[in-house]
């Protein structure tokens, strides 16, 4: 089993604030890797570093063996690494189907494909994925009119439309109605098992991480605190101590 993403000794600071210090981790292919940590521990900063949103101060980030720490966001996205946003982002004035169509992979397209119309096969794929996330009946609505949870599902479907190799999800269940969370976990799992997409997930909701992830990394104060299977991590003294400060969800489980 190979690693899709390899992060080595990455540090990033903003002014005097160190957001990530000497972090190394691996995201193995075909698995779900979780990233947890209290608020402000540097999880989203690490995501932003990986997808090229800002340059890193030190270290190296490799995707399929290729160094990507000096590449720009769209280039990295076209390699097959996609991220979703904590505050969901969709194209809010377009309907759901159009949101899906423009999310086709842009990996190999040249200038000529800029003016191509969409074929029946693509339309079918968009419909199928909207069906997969349960938005088929709303496919012609303007996406900005959807509820927050539905927008999140749409963003997930758009990411699947792009056929990424790895998908970085920033708190996929935040703001989603608890009754819908199980359905979402099921779909995330199926994305891995059926579509072969590797997942790297930031998640605050402990039961979700424990349910979903094959292995988990925990950050605290910008450093890597613990790593292991979900069971190992949630029983780790240091992790419990780090969370007891602000977050008590560990105890629910």
């Amino acid at each position: 089993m190979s690693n899709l993403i390899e992060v080595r000794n990455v540090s990033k600071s903003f002014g005097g604030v160190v957001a990530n210090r000497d972090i190394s981790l691996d995201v193995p292919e075909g698995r779900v890797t979780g990233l947890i940590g209290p608020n402000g521990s540097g999880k989203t900063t690490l995501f932003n570093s990986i997808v090229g949103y800002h340059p890193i101060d030190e270290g190296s980030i490799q995707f399929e063996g290729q160094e990507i720490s000096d590449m720009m966001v769209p280039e990295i996205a076209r390699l097959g690494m996609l991220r979703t946003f904590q505050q969901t982002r969709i194209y809010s004035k377009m309907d759901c189907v159009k949101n899906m169509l423009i999310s086709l992979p842009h990996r190999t397209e040249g200038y000529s494909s800029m003016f191509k119309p969409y074929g029946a096969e693509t339309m079918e794929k968009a419909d199928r994925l909207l069906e997969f996330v349960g938005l088929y009946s709303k496919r012609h609505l303007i996406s900005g009119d959807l509820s927050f949870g539905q927008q999140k599902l749409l963003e997930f479907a758009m990411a699947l439309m792009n056929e990424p190799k790895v998908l970085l999800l920033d708190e996929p269940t935040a703001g989603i109605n608890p009754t819908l969370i199980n359905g979402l976990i099921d779909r995330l799992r199926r994305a891995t098992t059926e579509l072969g997409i590797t997942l790297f997930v930031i998640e605050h909701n402990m039961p979700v991480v424990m349910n979903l992830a094959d292995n988990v990394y925990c950050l605290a104060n910008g450093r890597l605190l613990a790593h292991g299977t979900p069971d190992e991590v949630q029983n780790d003294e240091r992790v419990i101590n780090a969370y007891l400060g602000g977050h008590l969800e560990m105890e629910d489980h």
Partner: protein
Amino acid sequence: MSIAQQKILLYAVILVLGIGGPLIFPNYTFQISVLWVMILFALTWDILGGQMGYNSLGNIFFFGVGMYTCALVQVGLYTDVSVYTSATGGANLRLTPEEYFIGLGLGAFAGAIVASIFAVIFGWVVFGLRGPYFAIGTLGFTLAAGELVGAWEWVGGGGGIALPVYPGPPDERSLLFNFLCFILAVIAFLTVKWMYAGQFGLAANAIRDDEEKAEAMGIHTLRYKTVGWTIAAFFLGISGAIFGNMVGFIEPLEVAFPTVTFGIFMVVMCLLGGKGTLWGPVVGAALFHIFKEVTWTYMLGWQWVALGALIIILVVFFQQGVMGWLQEKWPSRFGITVDENVVAKKSSEAAQ
């Protein structure tokens, strides 16, 4: 009557007006020609301004570039440019019809190409800017271009340059240029219609709605912006070439780089008709042209005040424009599905 039939009727009416207009109203031939140029202005401005959310105040630059390039080719093919422009009067380059039309054709083509090249170069510089900075940046280079051309003696400087004399009667001349303006506007319309129907249209709208998301999804945002602007510049270049010849005498500030007239009009026309719609620029240009002719004729002295008032009213009360308003009113006619719950929620919010 079905929608398809209505569309055919609409196109037929436009075709009849386009070809028959100057024959029915021979006194208004020049005004009708300007109307087609205005429609072209609005259509090409909307590629970036409406569909992508990049509000350029400098598109008129490409019009001036096309106009000057064409003039220089037309003159330079048959005489020495610096001798021609330094001679007083200058307006005596008489050519045979064959020479004239070869010069015009090559000049218009060169104007389009040079304008397109400038679009690529300037796009590379200004597409790093967002929102108001982009608008000011584009305005800046257009103002600078007018001044630079005005100081460039080889092309006639601030005094301008006279174009070769049309080898034929004046009526024939105005009909010809009217027809060229009409054809060009139609081709521009068909081109943007085709662009918006495919991936370009969706990518442009994605950039407008959330450019950062579009980048994160791997869309070639810079490529789409550059190609959109280059196509706009291509048409503006040809329109500048034709417009220059239609007027017969060009100079930098009022005719070639008229930032505060045509440069602003193209924005106002899109606002009036509805930004980001296919027909909005066409409707806006037609309504605006009528408004402008009426105020310039009957409110002389106050025409700029009337124009200012129109802009304020549009920006404050009517941001969606005519087509935007029609889409809100009858969404299903435009293929837009609206969630009834959302409509109910919005109207109850509005009521409170």
